[in-house]
């Protein structure tokens, strides 16, 4: 077995063991008629603050504070523990106030987006190289514009070369819109090729009604369609990789602020119980 899966397995076991120990400690605290939700709450708050430290580390990359990969692994480990602490804190109960629901839902989105990011970072990178060299994200619009230009020139050239209107008609009806902007992004996330298969089948059908010169043009259009499809796949996958932090980070900041209000309200309206 290679080292990486083994290490990941050990980390997973570590999370489970740590969560069990944490639960036991919180439960022990509650044995003496103390409200264990207070302890769990403070542990949860502290955990969230530590998790935000990763964001700070990411802003000051020039400071030699250890490799970022180690920070990410600690963040992931703590993240799972924080989810467990949340469960201990809420004691499996649903909120009973609007603010409680807000906090509860925000935490679910935060935890869910974090878990999603954890999985995406493992699932997407190998898929980016499936079709060849990954395209730099910033260059995708430029490349797409170039493909659109080439496709238009190819289709218009077909009218000149072979006096065929089939290819131009197919371009105007289907391909022009296809090349104009990103397409089939959800299909790419699912790994489905049904839309592109349909498009290439249409082109193959058109090829049956044109001469040899026209068939060369159709083959060229087909090649451009496949290139555009791969570009859309890159956009979908890279976009998702880059996009999920835009959910995770703002929610994280929001929860920190709401937690301060939550603490104030809990202590303000409590009867002084520890």
């Amino acid at each position, binding site marked *: 077995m290679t080292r990486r899966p083994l290490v990941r397995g050990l980390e997973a076991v570590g999370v489970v063991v740590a969560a069990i120990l944490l639960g036991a400690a919180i439960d022990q605290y509650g044995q003496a008629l103390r409200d264990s939700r207070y302890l769990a709450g403070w542990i949860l708050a502290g955990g969230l603050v530590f998790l935000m430290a990763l964001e700070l580390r990411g802003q000051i990359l020039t400071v030699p504070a250890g490799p970022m990969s180690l920070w990410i692994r600690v963040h992931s480990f703590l993240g799972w523990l924080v989810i467990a602490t949340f469960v201990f804190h809420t004691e499996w109960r649903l909120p009973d106030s609007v603010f409680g629901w807000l906090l509860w839902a925000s935490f679910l989105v935060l935890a869910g987006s974090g878990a999603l990011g954890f999985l995406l970072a493992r699932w997407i990178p190998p898929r980016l190289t499936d079709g060849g060299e*990954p395209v730099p994200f910033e260059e995708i619009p430029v490349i797409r514009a170039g493909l659109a230009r080439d496709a238009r020139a190819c289709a218009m050239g077909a009218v000149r070369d072979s006096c065929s209107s089939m290819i131009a008609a197919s371009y105007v009806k289907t391909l022009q819109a296809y090349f104009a902007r990103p397409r089939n992004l959800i299909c790419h996330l699912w790994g489905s090729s049904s839309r592109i298969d349909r498009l290439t089948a249409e082109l193959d059908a058109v090829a049956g009604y044109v001469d040899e010169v026209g068939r060369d043009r159709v083959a060229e259009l087909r090649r451009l369609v496949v290139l555009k499809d791969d570009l859309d796949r890159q956009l979908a996958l890279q976009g998702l990789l880059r996009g999920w932090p835009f959910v995770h980070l703002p929610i994280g900041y929001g929860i920190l602020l709401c937690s301060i209000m939550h603490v104030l309200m809990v202590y303000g309206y409590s009867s002084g119980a520890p």
Partner: protein
Amino acid sequence: MKISNSPASVDHSERRWQRRPRRWDRPFGDEAMSADDVARVLALPVFRDMNPDEFPGHMRLNDIIANDAQIRRSAKGVEVVRQGDYGNSLFVVMIGRVSRAAAKGAVSPDKPAAAILGAGEMFGEISALSRSPRSANVISLTDETELLELRWQGVVEMRRWSRSFRDLVDGRYREKSLASYFRHSPIFSHLDEASRREIAELTQFETHGDAEWFQRFRRKSEKTGKMQGREPLIAEEGHFLDGILIIRAGFARESRRLDQGRRTVGFLGSNDVFGLEELIEYRAGKGDGRLRGSLSAIGYVDILNVPGDILMTNALPTLPSDVLGRVTGDTRGYDTDHSPFAIDIRNQALLEFLIDHRLINGAAAMVIDQNLCVHCDDCIRACAATHGGLSRFARQGQRQGPLMVARSCMHCVDPVCLIGCPTGAIFRGLETGHVEIDAEACIGCEICAHACPYGNIRMTDIRDPEGYVVIGDDGGPIRKAIKCDLCTGRTGGPACVAACPHAALKRVDLRDIARSRAWRAQ
């Protein structure tokens, strides 16, 4: 002056002008040598026979000495040169004496040393010409030792224009480098001096390939795929060997026939030996004396051809048993079974890829595992943040499977970018071995950028602190060469490696192919 990519709109009515830097703006010493000192240097035996008229008007001999040389004064016991440090200059003793010894700790003013050099004698020319580590410690033996230190830019110009100097230095280089190699090589170090001398006298120097390979390499590799067919053949599989081949500089490919083609089984670098295994087996009566593989030059290779008969009589009878493993390297292929069914074609493809693209030159290549890279560009941001806002590399490059070798300086084993630099602005750090650029000394000639076969050095405009592009007195922007410097001096090592959130990016010595494979498996 600031090397920066900060966006700034250039107001053409307020251009910043600056005289374009020239080669000798920064002499080798604190200042250019005085005329009296130059005259003293020219009186030394090494330079006495040189004809100043052989030098052109723009590269006068006096100017070379004044600007590319410096006089160093050392007290007794001071270490002038340390073994293992990278060298880029030669020395001539002007006054006093120095001692030179190869073993660490064996030299001091009071202990006997391997060699004592007096006034007029030269040392350090091997390192200066070959850009290799110093082979010995040199220590001052007298209180007011004076040494002339000539940096290799000056050595190159003197060699180029003066026939007498060229003959002197080349002859010494061949004689001393050979003697030095034989003293340290595990194949010959167990022999006495007389035996080594006898072998050295019969050894032939050979050069294969194209010394200017790097200038054409980039164009060729982009046009065509396989490079193997264009590599000059040095020795052919199946032929009877007449001796062993020792690589002195450059790289060579060892390949064996497989089906209709040739399979690369490994590469040989400096100090690796080809044919020793077959020779040992032949002497023991176990082999037929034929070569089991072919050897071809990768770009350019310097070789020592040592005749087999002198080896069999002088060296092999007393050769230590562990020598074979130490000189044939550990990169000789992945399998011993050469049937097509035994070949791991993916690992074979990686080996061919690294050799075909000459990436085995890389001692600190940036390798990115595409199966882990999430394209966050934190590596680029960290590099830019560490280097004044301008990243020193591009997250693109040659790819083999999931491994990508990014376009970042690889700090090559043989950095050809150093060859043409007129000012020494691009240099190899004496202790670290990292190839660095001194921005103050760079005159923007672009020789290094064009020389780099991998396109890892680029030129950038210089801006003043207010963001204006600095314009030279010829009207064009002043540019400087920039490249990855491995964050030399930064605590924690390269910022790019530290910033990668999924450990997808590593700096790898590509010569160690086994380590590259193990890293991928982690």
